[in-house]
């Protein structure tokens, strides 16, 4: 009898155990299989793609506030150029852009590569799930088009950073193309030419799908066409560049800021009719000192590191026209009493303010990826390739009219000491300074990068060596030849190790 009682008790206990449910689901994530199963799934994932262009995310085990796409986007372009001078040695890998001492394991390129492909994965998810929807609405087609656009945008930016320019080596190694979420993980780099063609096809597809513009914060038909005009230019395809630019300019959706308006354009880029595509940031997205684009190039004393400045080179190019409103974005730090420009480690401080003052916040901006002025300049450069002096200079003058240089128009006359290409490129340099163009514009045109001014791009420079009265001599790095292998970055070490098909850059 007693035994039976225990057995009963024992059985009860055993039976009790398997009754609990071991299936537990997260409360703050979509299960990949069900993305399309929730009403907001697709727009959520599409928004996630845009969000990753600005957010810091976990990489290598932690979230580094200094790792975000936007900031690095400018590190790999303008920091390696002649518009920005380095005012301080730093342990941060952004320093290697100045010094051209890249390595495959520097954290910024590793993150940039990773986050680019992560967004591509998100875009591919939208494309794959969206294209399964029968009879898609205009809104769904718009989403799919935006996904194609972002996929192209990211592949194109990877190409600029990691592959030699199309004009230099079209059959050299480009980048890894990710067409689906189920592509083999181990994959080789496509050639530069194939990569560019892939980007062009995506943009054409994107342009054909998008018909419901949602503002410059999102991709649109014209954003795709505008990018096409730039990419054809990078491919030296002047006719297509002109045709794409025409389509944007003639759409009538955009309008250049006036000279007065341009002085505050970058603070109110979201609202401006000059903006075609930008990465929208709201007040909550202000990344502060650690990760905002502005932080390295501007500080109000507290807001940023303020270690990199407008270079003597760009200031010299602009010095001809003090009335040029584009000076509004170069702000010397002056002693209020003496008016003398302050120095950091011997380098004069000329802050850059294109990434500051949205909502009055020194660290907040919605970085502009594409604006109408660039499309004019793309067309101008394409006309120049074709030798169309009048067309090229008309487009350049169109810009100058809106930048306070009505009194200094070319009126169809190439200046005596410059070529047409130089004239167009100089305008492009001044107009798009610090916006992630200059370095690529130099090298794709097979020009050398000359940085014959004092700055910490000069290896081993100490403050005590700086003598602003004379230009620096005898340092390596003053001139970087256009065919120097270091003009592009290494493929991140992680990719090389895990992807046996992927070849490293020399």
């Amino acid at each position, binding site marked *: 009898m007693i035994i039976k009682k225990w057995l009963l008790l024992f059985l009860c206990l055993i039976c009790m155990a398997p009754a609990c449910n*071991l299936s537990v689901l997260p409360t*703050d*994530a979509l299960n990949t299989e069900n993305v399309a199963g929730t009403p907001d799934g697709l727009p959520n994932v599409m928004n996630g793609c*845009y969000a990753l262009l600005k957010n810091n995310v976990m990489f290598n085990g932690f979230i580094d506030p200094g790792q975000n796409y936007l900031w690095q986007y400018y590190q790999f372009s303008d920091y390696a150029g002649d518009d920005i001078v380095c005012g301080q040695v730093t342990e941060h890998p952004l320093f290697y852009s100045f010094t051209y001492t890249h390595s495959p394991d520097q954290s910024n390129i590793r993150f940039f590569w990773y986050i680019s492909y992560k967004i591509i994965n998100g875009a591919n998810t939208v494309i794959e799930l969206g294209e399964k929807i029968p009879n898609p609405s205009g809104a769904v087609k718009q989403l799919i088009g935006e996904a194609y656009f972002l996929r192209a945008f990211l592949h194109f930016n990877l190409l600029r950073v990691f592959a030699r320019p199309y004009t230099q080596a079209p059959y050299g190694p480009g980048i890894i193309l990710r067409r689906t979420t189920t592509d083999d993980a181990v994959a080789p780099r496509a050639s530069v030419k194939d990569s560019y063609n892939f980007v062009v096809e995506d943009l054409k597809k994107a342009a054909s799908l998008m018909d419901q513009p949602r503002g410059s914060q999102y991709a649109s038909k014209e954003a795709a066409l505008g990018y096409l005009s730039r990419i054809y230019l990078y491919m030296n395809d002047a006719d297509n560049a002109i045709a794409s630019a025409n389509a944007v300019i003639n759409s009538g959706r955009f309008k250049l800021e006036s000279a007065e308006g341009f002085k505050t354009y970058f603070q109110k880029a979201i609202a401006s009719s000059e903006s075609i595509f930008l990465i929208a940031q709201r007040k909550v997205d202000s990344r502060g000192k650690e990760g905002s684009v502005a932080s390295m190039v501007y500080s109000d004393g507290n807001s940023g590191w303020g270690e990199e400045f407008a270079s003597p080179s760009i200031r010299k190019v602009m010095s001809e026209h003090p009335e040029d409103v584009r000076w509004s974005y170069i702000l010397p730090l002056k002693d209020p009493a003496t008016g003398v420009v302050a120095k950091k480690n011997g380098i004069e401080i000329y802050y850059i303010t294109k990434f500051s003052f949205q909502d009055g916040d020194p660290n907040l901006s919605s970085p502009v990826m594409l604006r109408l002025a660039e499309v004019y300049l793309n067309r101008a450069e394409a006309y120049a390739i074709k030798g169309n002096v009048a067309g090229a200079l008309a487009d350049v003058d169109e810009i100058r009219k809106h930048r306070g240089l009505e009194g200094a128009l070319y009126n169809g006359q190439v200046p005596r000491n410059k070529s047409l290409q130089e004239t167009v490129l100089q305008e492009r340099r001044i107009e798009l300074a610090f916006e992630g163009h200059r370095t690529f514009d130099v090298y794709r045109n097979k020009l050398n990068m000359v940085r014959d001014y004092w700055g910490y791009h000069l290896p*081993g420079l100490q403050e005590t060596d700086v003598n602003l009265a004379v230009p620096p001599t005898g340092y390596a790095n003053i001139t970087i030849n256009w065919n120097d292998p270091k003009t592009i970055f290494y493929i991140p070490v992680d990719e090389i190790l895990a992807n046996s098909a992927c070849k490293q850059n020399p």
Partner: protein
Amino acid sequence: MKMSFKSIHVFLSLLVCLLCGAFVSHAQVLIKGKVSGTDGQGIPGVSIAVKGQSTGVISGANGTYSITAGSTQDTLLFRMMGYLPVSRVTGNHTEINVKLMAALTDINEVVVMGYDDKKRTEITSAVSVLSGKRLKDVTANDVGTMLQGKVAGVQVVNSSGAPGSVPDIRIRGIASLSAPKGPLVVVDGIIGGNYDPGDVAAVTVLKDAGATGMYGSQANGGVIIITTKKGKPGAPRFDFKATLGRRTPNDGHLNMMSGNGFFNASKELYRDTLSGKIDILKFYNERPRELADRNFNWVDNAFHSALVQNYYLSASGKTDKFTYYLGGSYYNEAGTFKNTGFQRVNLRTNTTYEFSKRVSVSNNINISASTGKTYDYMDLFYTYLSVPWDNPYDDTGSPRYVDANTKGWWSRDKINPLHTLANSDHSTKDFNINYDFIGNIKLTDWLTFTSSNRVGVGTNKSHSFFSPLVAGSYHGKGLLDESSSLYYSGISTNLFKFSFSKGRHAISGLAGAEFQGSWDELLGGQGKGLPVGFDVPAVISSEQQLRGVRNHSVMQSLISQVNYNYAEKYYLTASYRVDGTSAFPPTHRYAQFPAIGVSWLASNETFLKGNPWLNLLKLRATYGITGMQDIGAYKYLGLFSLSAQYNSQAAAIPDQLPNQNLTWEKTHQRNLGLDLGLWNRVTLNVDVYSNVTKDLLLQVSQPLSVGFESRWENVGQLRNKGLEITLSTVNVKTKNFQWTMDVTFGMNKNELAGIGKPVYQTINGITQIYRDGGELYTFNIPRWLGVDPATGRPLWEQVTRDNAGNIIKRSPTSDYGQAESQETGHALPRFQGGFGTSVSWKGISLSASFAYSQGAQIMNFIRRFMDVDGHEPYYNQMQPKSDWSRWTKPGDIATHPSMQKAALSTEISSRYQEDGSFIKLRNVSLSYDVPMHIVQRLHLQGLRLALSGDNLYTWTKFWGQDPEVTVNRADFSMPGVADFRYPANRQYLGTVEINF
């Protein structure tokens, strides 16, 4: 039916005994006496029994007893845990006073093993027990610190001296790559739980699978079993202990330069590369002479000596049916760094009520509340690096506001950390209740049912605040970030425990089921736009952000164990556990964890028994499997995380690749052990082990071009092999004088296998490689070759390979870009342990304990900022080691390159990698037990006074802060990397202990 027959048989035997006892009761003799220790103090709670009879008594509060013996030929047995048993023939005595000697090796000691208790002789596994003085010489808020250097094979790393910080504990190396690597903590037999060190009676460390196999899937990192104090028979006993002392920051060999020192060191910046001379005119022009006289010591101003207090009061006792223990403690440590501190209040009641001889119920409640003020990394960073020429105070003595536009401020980033400290606050609060309900029903003499249950509820709050007054990012806006969590958990373990013996066979064991569940809910938010002087969420006016999530995990298990011994000579233990967890996909949720252990107690063999010099000889062997599942929830699912927004709309980002085959990681453990006791003076324990963790839960690297860093997979193996030795000796032992020594030694070597492609992890530019055949935490960085005597440039090793990848040449290069990353050493010690000695004369005792560690490599990362060849002219520099030298002219054999030719000299390389070996004087204490006659005159039971010093000195070549560097992989932290750290504490304490 067979069982019930046996039980009847046992019952009848007992009945016969009782009757016999009654029958012979005619010739009884009443004997009185007192049991005392060697110091003369009465010992309560000693069991006194007449040999061969079941009757027995327990000594009272002051050690007195009275017992009725049968005849003059009877033998009285005096037994007490922790003392050597004594037997006396009654003879014609009516008063027998006995002195008990503390046992060094009490083979009858009962060891708490978690699910059950075992006599030491029964144990087949590698198990260490620490209790009493040996545990509590060091005053700390956690048990981990108390274990350091005392248990062979247990590595305790105190990498931070921040108030309230707890050390990392690693048992037998590291068995897991991704899951938590610390041991499972079991409090009073139930997994998890909270306790105060003051309430701890003993700590058992289970090291091999023979013992930890019982904990199956949670025991990969070993098990630490905490036993809290229980009431003892006798009158109510009150214990009071007060500890008070001061602590100072201990920065080891790290000293920053003085104003004058930094001034002179800065001259090197002005050395002309051609002439080799310093351009002193230019120097004085740019660094005015008066700077040499400005000497502000930032470190001394941000740190100060701090007060430590710990008070503990308990009442305990046992009446006929009721055992009780009530303990309360208050711990308060002020931080040595400004604006930091920690305090904790803990209350515990442990009670047991015996309803009948068969049924007893224990209710244990622990309530703890703590509050702490922590620190911001950047404040530490700037404290060390600010230039001594800058004075942080204004004319009124308040910290000065400094920003990038401040003139005449030399330090690099134009921040005054003392101003930030005065205008910011980082604090935490924690409140936690555990309630344990343990029911014991003795179903028969051989079968007991035990139900152990715990519910825990806790809440935690953190508060991080920067006033709008601070310089930097938050200037003018301020920042407030608050978060709170609510967590609750339940665990229920229901076991049948049985025990029989027949003749020389004894068998015991248990079987049952366990259920564990935990839930947590997090809520947090932050915002800016704070009015000056306010720091609550209600005043936030801009950039509001909310966060919050709920998590849940479940685990269920079946548990069983059988112990068998023959003639108390041959022992066998076998256990089997099945665990199911919510962490894995439905098809892979359950896993089995068997373990077996055997031992031979040779000293109980007739040919050795009674041997005067050999007290104990035991050989042990175990094999078993433990596992790990604790990598966080949902790791097998493909996920898009809804953690973002774009343009104020919900955004989901690709977060995780799915793996529907993810399953348990299992460690196969083998252990061989020897226990030896000689002359009742020497005990030696030796264990060798070989543990292989298979199917490692690893985030396997993916090509980044798929958009994910990694995918959770079961891949590869991690092997740990080691040797552990514990030696305890009583060198001298007389009535009044005793001298003892303890030595522990642990050696561990680990090796990875089966991973395939190497995995690299990089933080702050420092890379560690995980590869087949490699050891954990191996640095993979360029090798530093010093300075080129001809040019003064830095040199690294360039490795030239042929087309097949074979190395054909190693040569020095001054081009950092040509230097190949290679393995330069690993962060785990080759061996480690501790030693201690104690001398006591009458009531005075003096003891010292040391911890040591040999063979770990440390990346002294802070040198990248404070030993930088002039790259950072506005960071203060560390005082150089005596054998460092700077290259100034061709031919110089120097350790440091010319400042003018030092391009990239501070880039990550083995330059800053140093030997982290050390010997540390952990504790010295002097105590005095006031003699009984004085104590009694004060109407007390005991009075003890002690002075102690902790962390007094470290012998090491490591040129930085404390060589105890984190072994933890976390945000911004990599094993073996010495970043800026809250310095370790050196503390001096006085203690008064009163029993009444």
